[in-house]
């Protein structure tokens, strides 16, 4: 697993390289009291991956994204995007951005909005119309392309937001809470779209606090809390940490005495029993169930979920803070 300040192998170009990006706001009546929105952040996102930026609300995710977009200026630090300084306008022509809970010019239709953004992104006039039709189709807004955005639902606005972010075929997209406000079907569609973007070679950096989305989608994730990076790693590595335990499920309404004797943690649910035992006891447990002529349904090694890892990282920080206090 990588840690903060992850180094890249030589000759590998990062999609994003954040070098000590930091943001401190001066708050209070006289603007004298510092508030650290983001501690110095070092992070690298490789090309072609889906990278999840996880953290609870107020962790510093949006601040980081705003700094990368040039909307907020860092107190110190810098970043490189697609191998170039992140402030260069040429870099911005190759990235797409979906802000959290996007709001657009509501007097425009979806088609006009995309035409406007296409012009600003430098999409040539001869390609613009075709591209607009393509992305509208892709996000399912073709039917309402002539409707003013003020009549759009929250979910439709989110789709329009995604459309404007991918209109100019960027090499890297930043999505800030892209599933926010979407129903389960909409979330599924956004997940599919992000996977398609990855297959097309687009790097995706998205922030979320919905861990199931991150676990299902991301190659790697970073966890941020109270403006500080808590951990970075590949989702496979974080969730493959077998704890030396297995989960056995069998069909019965009772727990055999032999299983109780092994000290298994059992839970009866309907006509099924779920038990967690140590890996060493696995063979003995199977034998015991066979002897009782009980139908075995499944045996699964226990994996650490991303949620467990996330909670551990957050609790660790709270414990550390408590100890220091």
């Amino acid at each position, binding site marked *: 697993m990588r840690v903060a300040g992850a180094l890249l192998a030589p000759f590998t170009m990062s999609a994003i390289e954040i070098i000590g990006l930091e943001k401190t706001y001066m708050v209070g009546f006289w603007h004298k009291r510092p508030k650290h929105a983001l501690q110095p952040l070092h992070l690298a996102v490789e090309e072609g991956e889906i990278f999840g930026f996880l953290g609870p609300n107020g962790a510093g995710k949006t601040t980081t994204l*705003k700094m990368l*977009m*040039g*909307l*907020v*200026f860092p107190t110190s630090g810098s970043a490189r995007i697609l191998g170039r300084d992140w402030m260069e*306008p*040429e870099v*911005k*022509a190759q*990235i797409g*951005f979906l*802000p959290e*809970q*996007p*709001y*657009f*010019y509501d*007097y*425009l239709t979806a088609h006009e909005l995309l035409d*406007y*953004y296409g*012009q*600003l*992104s*430098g999409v040539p006039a001869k390609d613009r119309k075709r591209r607009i039709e393509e992305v509208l189709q892709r996000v399912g807004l073709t039917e309402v392309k002539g409707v003013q955005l003020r009549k759009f639902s929250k979910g439709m606005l989110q789709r329009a*937001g995604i459309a*404007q*972010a991918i209109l100019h075929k960027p090499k890297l997209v*930043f999505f800030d809470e892209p599933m926010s406000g979407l129903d389960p079907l909409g979330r599924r569609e956004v997940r599919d779209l992000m996977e398609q973007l990855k297959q097309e070679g687009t790097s995706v950096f998205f922030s979320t606090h919905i861990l199931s989305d991150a676990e299902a989608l991301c190659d790697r994730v970073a966890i941020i809390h109270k403006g500080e990076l808590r951990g970075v790693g590949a989702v496979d590595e974080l969730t493959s940490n077998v704890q030396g335990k297995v989960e056995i499920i069998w069909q019965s309404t009772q727990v055999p005495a032999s299983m109780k004797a092994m000290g298994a943690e059992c839970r009866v649910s309907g006509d099924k029993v779920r038990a967690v035992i140590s890996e060493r006891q696995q063979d003995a447990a199977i034998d015991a169930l066979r002897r009782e002529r009980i139908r075995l349904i499944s045996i699964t090694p226990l994996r650490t979920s991303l949620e467990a890892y996330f909670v551990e990282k957050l609790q660790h920080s709270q414990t550390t803070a408590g100890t220091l206090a």
Partner: protein
Amino acid sequence: MNARIYSIASNTFREAVRDRVLYNLIAFALLLSGGAIFVGQISIGIERLVVVNLGLTAVSLFGIVIAIFIGIGLVSKEIEKRTLYTVLSRPVRRWEFVVGKFFGLAGTLAVNTFFMAIGVFGALLYVAHKFAASDAFILVALYFIILEFLIVCAIALLFSSFSSPLLSAVFAFSLFIVGSFADDLRGFASLTHGITRWFVTAAAYLVPNFSALNVISAVAHQQPIAAQLILQNTFYALFYTAMTLSGAVLIFERRNLK
């Protein structure tokens, strides 16, 4: 004008049109036609004077109100509604955004003034039955009014780049009123002494000199406008607008969009 500035300006113009800003033309038309008919009935020999005065003053006031009320929200509304995020995350420089917004509003006012000017000439024709050669100076007065709008747009944009719409409106209106008496302020400065004189003189030259741009009364009295004044006012208005816009850009370039 580069393509991005043109796009931003076009979108600003489109917003004004869709927000029914040009509906003010209806109010203007009603005011002017009503005024012309009324004046035609009650005045003898001064119809032209009254209609030109009324018409050009209305063009100026309608435009100033629009310039301030749209101008104060040009940047702050975009920040508040977060529409700016998806613009500035593209290859758009902040100065291009400010300049594009300015041209969009200035374009809206120019179109508005064009239609109002047609109304003024229509009313004049109604009361006087024919145009005189001196009526060509009405065009100069309208040109000065447009120069006035450019300055007011830039001022509103400047305040919008760092202040709330309400405060921006107060500041911009105050500056417009003080600027309308800029000549009086300069006269007052010459009557004072010491530090007060220095301070009042500085203030008098810092505020926009709208009184120099106001030739409505002279035009209504069919007096000619000197070519030198046209040149001076053009240079002054463009310089003042450019300086004010530069101030807006400097502030906006450093602003964190929280």
